[in-house]
């Protein structure tokens, strides 16, 4: 049930933002500082999500096979691998390490 609320609420809000852009007078959003914050916010959020998904286990920090997956992913990104390859390599790395009994 909670998942349903999340799915529908997030969808409604996102659609509201999309529509809002076509309605709002440009001067509201085009101030340099507002633009800067809007542009930079995703970097903070995404970095935060990398840490959360990669190093947390409930409310604790944890180092396990995910770390190796992330390192491999970073290497793939440096080599300009496409998104799907990056994600798949990380999964395979972690899966293989766990199969071998680590992490």
């Amino acid at each position: 049930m909670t998942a349903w609320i999340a799915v529908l609420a997030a969808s409604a809000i996102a659609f509201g933002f999309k529509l809002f852009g076509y309605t709002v007078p440009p001067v509201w959003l085009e101030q340099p500082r507002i633009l800067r914050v809007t542009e930079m916010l995703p970097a903070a959020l995404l970095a935060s999500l990398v840490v959360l998904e990669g190093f947390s286990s409930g409310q604790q920090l944890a180092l396990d096979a995910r770390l190796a997956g992330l390192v491999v992913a970073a290497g793939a990104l440096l080599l300009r691998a496409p998104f799907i390859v990056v994600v798949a390599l990380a999964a395979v790395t972690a899966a293989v390490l766990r199969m071998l009994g680590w992490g």
Partner: protein
Amino acid sequence: MRRATGGTRVCTVPGACGTSGSHPSERRRAGVRTGVAWGPGAVAGHPCPVDVDAPRPEHADQHPRERDRRAVVRQGLSVAIATGLYGVSFGALSVASGLTVLQTCLLSLLLFSGGSQFALIGILGGGGTVGAAVAASSLLALRNALYGLQLGPTMLPRGWRRFAVAQLTIDESTAVAVSQSATPLRRLGFWVTGLGVYIGWNLMTLIGAFAGDALGDPRRYGLDAAASAAFLALLWPRLRAREPVAIAVVGAVATTLLIPVLPQGLPVLAAALLGALAAWFWAKRWSAADAEAAE
């Protein structure tokens, strides 16, 4: 960290890849402005689909040639295909994080904004509250409002079209649209890319969701590592200038420190807030540094 972009074409044109603002320093500074940022399809290191350095033909003002129209369609479709592939990973990860196949597909149909979708399932899957998940998703969706602002004069949506245009306003459709030379081509680029990505993203989400459902324990297949890697891949194209790197470091360090302290879901929001504050207060200093560099 300014990476050389040799080899792959990376978009550096102002406004292409979904940005507004036109001052040169504005364009130059933000990693966000280079490379397709994200959305359904924000493929890391994904080259800009548009040949931004190509001279713009003068003739194309009101009656674009057939050849130009075809080029726009090709661009849009190639973006849609790349994006669709990436939808598979969303479908699989979403089901692995505990959502049903139906909820997963509805997210792609209704929310239709890649970064937001990944954030929502990431926080829900990690045990975060509904409020935290929706808040993170919405913060990431905020940029779509900027795209609408930028596309408004081109698309001039009326009636029911207003809703269709709004729903298709994402990174990819904006990027392809704003980099065309004339209004009819911009509209064409928007519709082809927007509809193409919508169809591809949703079809592949469905396939990924069923595949993920059949797999069982996600950790066995390293899907938890895949989720983290997906966020890294979304972040990657933004790390081309020092400012987004600094902000990303703020976000990562804050999260690391806050995970053991705050209830689940809140560290991400706190990190986003701190990142926004840092951007707000550093904005002035960065503008000054830019002005100096320009002299």
